[in-house]
């Protein structure tokens, strides 16, 4: 393994449409580290994950991002994925008529850069699906079509488990999950992390509850497009106790004239 950090973000500015959403984000995630990113709605958490994954509508106007030492921003989203970056979407897309089985197998082929026989694929799939307590029939459904909130999230983590990425961005994976499903999904994430000890993680969440299952090494708070506070897991507990109001009062920019 290289000694390069898994992810190195320097002064990242991102614009969507006409509006600057990220206004200089700095973040370093070393291999094997778990970072939590918290912050009120609209602070730019999803924007960060989309920009890192390479969504064409999220324009980088300033800053740089190194992924295992390489310039991430020069790569298309597919190349980023093949190199081991993974985003569990907050709102996964419905693709009508595409079977989950077919999608997952093609995804794996792309990641591995070689054919994956149906037999080999089935074996891995069964293993990972039982890890997440998913039923076999699931893969015969169409991609995200009619999935419940919980099914969508489970399916995102199933993809993560199959791909074994080197860096995962989990965007509000806990939302839409009831307490049992949350435990199963988090156990799944931990199992993947335990198997891939170099895997870095950015856990985007609104609440503390997911962090009870996945213990972060660091916690950052994003507010109005900037990381305003970083600390250890105690920061998340503090936030939970006082709410985002504290942050807002401390960091709210005076209205521009």
């Amino acid at each position, binding site marked *: 393994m290289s000694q390069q950090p898994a992810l190195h973000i320097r002064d990242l500015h991102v614009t969507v449409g006409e509006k600057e959403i990220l206004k200089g984000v700095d973040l370093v995630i070393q291999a094997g580290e778990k970072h939590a990113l918290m912050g009120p709605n609209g602070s730019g958490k999803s924007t960060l994950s989309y920009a890192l994954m390479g969504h*064409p509508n999220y324009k980088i106007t300033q800053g740089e991002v190194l992924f295992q030492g390489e310039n991430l921003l020069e790569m298309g989203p*597919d190349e980023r994925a093949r190199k081991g970056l993974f985003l569990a979407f907050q709102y996964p897309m419905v693709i009508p*008529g595409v079977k989950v089985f077919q999608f997952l*197998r093609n995804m794996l082929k792309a*990641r591995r850069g070689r054919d994956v026989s149906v037999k080999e694929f089935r074996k891995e799939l069964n293993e990972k699906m039982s890890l997440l307590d998913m039923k076999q029939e699931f893969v015969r459904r169409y991609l995200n079509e009619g999935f419940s909130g919980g099914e969508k999230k489970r399916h995102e983590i199933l993809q993560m488990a199959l791909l074994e990425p080197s860096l995962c961005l989990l965007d509000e994976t806990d939302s839409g999950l009831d307490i049992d499903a949350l435990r199963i999904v988090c156990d799944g994430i931990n199992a993947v992390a335990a198997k891939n000890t170099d895997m870095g993680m950015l856990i985007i969440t609104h609440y503390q509850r997911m962090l009870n299952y996945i213990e972060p090494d660091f916690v950052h708070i994003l507010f109005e497009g900037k990381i305003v506070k970083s600390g250890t897991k105690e920061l998340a507990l503090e936030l939970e106790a006082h709410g985002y109001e504290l942050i807002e009062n401390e960091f709210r920019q005076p209205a521009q004239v």
Partner: protein
Amino acid sequence: MATVNDALNEKRTQRDKTLSELNDIDRDYKYGFHDPEDKYVFKSGKGLTEEIVRKISAMKNEPEWMLDFRLRALKLFNDKPMPQWGSEMLNDIDFNNIHYYVRSSEKQERNWDDVPEDIRKTFDRLGIPEAEQKFLAGVTAQYESEVVYHSIREDLEKLGVIFTDMDSGLREYPEIVKKYMGTVIPSGDNKFSALNTAVWSGGSFIYVPKGVKVEIPLQAYFRINTENMGQFERTLIIADEGSSVHYIEGCTAPTYSTDSLHSAVVELIAMDGAKIRYTTIQNWSNNVYNLVTKRAIAHANATVEWVDGNLGSKLTMKYPAVWLKGEGARGEILSIAWAGKGQHQDAGAKIMHLAPNTSSVVTSKSISKDGGRTSYRGLIKVLPGCHGVKSNVRCDALLMDAHSRSDTYPTMQIDEDNVRVEHEATVSKISDEQLFYLMSRGLSDEEARLMIVNGFIEEFTKELPMEYSVELNKLIQLEMEGSIG
């Protein structure tokens, strides 16, 4: 029925195998190959005259009534003006520049080994012999205008099912042919049905006796291969009371330069309680005019399903129709159309509700790319007194770029109040968000688009036998690559 079961088992094994191949991106698949062209036993001169019609009939040793039938149709063809709707491309057809009859082989072949080598090679590349061995009940493979290969499995014969080419059908079962041919689609229905009636050659003739359920699809594979050559198949399928049959035809045409005309007539008759499914995939080369008249009559409680895929050709005009004549009859038309550069797919569906409590479902999917044009032209008609009619029409169009085009021309003529008729049409393009989601999983832009397009037509592909859906996915892939490479 041991052979049928064996075939089905093999089909299952094959399905498991092909399932794994279904998504493989196979870059070896080729079409556009061409056989040597000096093999013809007889080739009529260009242009259409009474003399040619007489000659065709004489060469086929037809009964007098068939010659009369042809000659009357020729007159209708000459009298009828060119349709002034659909596409202005129609006016480019030069009827004087077409061979109306080409025969490549003198005698009928009974088994695969007897089929001439170069023809076999062509089918080989299309994957036919294998499919034939795997699960086909019988093949009528038409090479040029004449059937060269023809087989009927023994179990079908035992059931009393007739499955033969139309020329043999006329020779062997003249009374059935005389009774039904032209009763669903009269010669004068339109200019092209008249043309077909005058010069028809080949096609399939199927009769399924009362109560017989044919469990394996009957299949014909044919192609055209001569410049300026016309193809005028004539297909007639009769499913007697309570019987069922699935017929499949498909074509992959090689590429050649001068315009070519294909004008088939397909007539289906489903007697009381019978079921017919007719599956077509057509992929004519981009210079072919494909002007097909397809119509079915469904009697009481009968079901007719048209599954119709149109890729290729320069202009396709095809509107499969079901006349729901008996109470409780049901018609279903499921189609896809792909129009690339310079192509116009004017496809649609017609349902005539002529009896109470009849129902219909029309699903049309079209894709336009590189300036291609698709149109859906549909008619739903409900006669007065036909209470309890249910009809659902859905047209989805996918535009691959800004200079491609899609239109919908739905016509509803509902002369009865107590009916439920629904129509829904959508036009969409591949969304950035869908593309991003797939690419974020490592699929390239092309792979992601292909997956979305294949998903778009999956409602259609899932109705096809496995090897056809694999082939269709490959063809779509070739079409998609067309603009990239």
